[in-house]
C-alpha cells in the first residue's frame, strides 16, 4: 500500500459505508473480488431479479466502489477500489492507532512493573 499516495478529493465515506451496510452488497463485492461479472452472473446464486441486482450495483457505483463497462453488451461490473483505498486505509489506521498503541502500552507497563520489582530501591 502506497501510504504517500495523494488524493485530491475525499471519497464520500458515508456513501461507502452505507453501501457496505447491506449484506447482499457485501456479497456482490466479494464476488467481484474474484473478477468482473455481469448482472446475470451476479444474480445467479441468489433468488433475486436482475433489476434488484442492478439496483444494488447502482448503490455500489454511486459510492465509487464499482464501475460498469459501457462499451459491452453485458456491461460487466468490476471493483474500483483504488480511489478510496488510500483514504480508507488511513481511516483504518486511525481506528487502530490508539487501540494498537494501548496494547503496546500494556507491554511497556508489564516490563516497568518487573523492573520496579527487581530494583525496589529505585522508587
Amino acid at each position: 500500500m502506497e501510504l504517500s499516495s495523494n488524493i485530491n478529493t475525499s471519497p464520500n465515506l458515508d456513501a461507502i459505508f452505507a453501501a457496505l451496510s447491506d449484506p447482499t452488497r457485501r456479497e456482490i463485492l466479494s464476488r467481484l473480488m474474484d473478477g468482473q461479472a455481469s448482472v446475470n452472473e451476479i444474480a445467479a446464486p441468489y433468488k433475486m431479479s436482475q433489476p434488484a441486482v442492478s439496483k444494488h450495483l447502482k448503490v455500489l457505483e454511486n459510492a465509487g466502489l464499482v464501475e460498469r463497462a459501457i462499451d459491452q453488451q453485458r456491461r460487466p461490473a468490476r471493483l474500483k477500489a483504488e480511489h478510496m483505498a488510500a483514504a480508507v486505509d488511513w481511516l483504518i489506521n486511525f481506528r487502530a492507532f490508539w487501540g494498537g498503541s494501548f496494547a503496546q502500552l500494556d507491554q511497556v507497563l508489564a516490563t516497568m512493573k518487573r523492573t520496579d520489582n527487581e530494583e525496589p530501591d529505585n522508587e
Partner: protein
Amino acid sequence: MSDLPEYKLERTFDAPRELVWRAWTDPELLQQWYGPGVETIIHKFDLQVGGEWLNEMKWGGNSNYQRVVFQEVNEPEKMVWHHYSATDAEWNTAPNPMMPDWPALLLTTVTFTELGDRTAVCLTQVPMDASEAEITCFAEMMKGMDKGWGSGFDIIEQILAEL
C-alpha cells in the same frame, strides 16, 4: 458547536497510576508504545503548559510528523493537548496528504483514574477550530465507528489486501 463529534477510548491498565503516568510522560518509555507498527522518534518533549512534543513516526520509507502543544498538565490525573495531526518536517501545520478534510487540530484530553492497583485511562479527541468539511469528515468517521462498521471494515480490508 456543542455537538462536535468526539473520539473516545477507555482502557483499564493493570498498573498503578504513577507507573502509567510515567509511561506517558517519559519520552524514552512513550516512544516504545506510541504508534503501532511504526518507529516512533520523539524529537522534543517539554511537559509543561505551552511546551511541545514533536513526534516523528517512520514506516517503510515514509515519515509522519505530528506536533503536540500541552495545554494542561495535572500530574498524575490529567493532560490536555492540542494535537496537530499532520505537519511538515519543520513542524509547520500541513494538509493531511491522506485525507485533506481530516481536522488539522484535535483537542486531546487524557485522564488517569486510580482503581486500586489499576488505572483507568480515558482519551478523547475533538476537532478544534475546524471547518465545516473537517467536522463532517471526522463525524462520518466517528459515526461509523459507533455503529460498528465491523463488517464494512472487514470487506474493505480484504479489498485493500488484494490491491
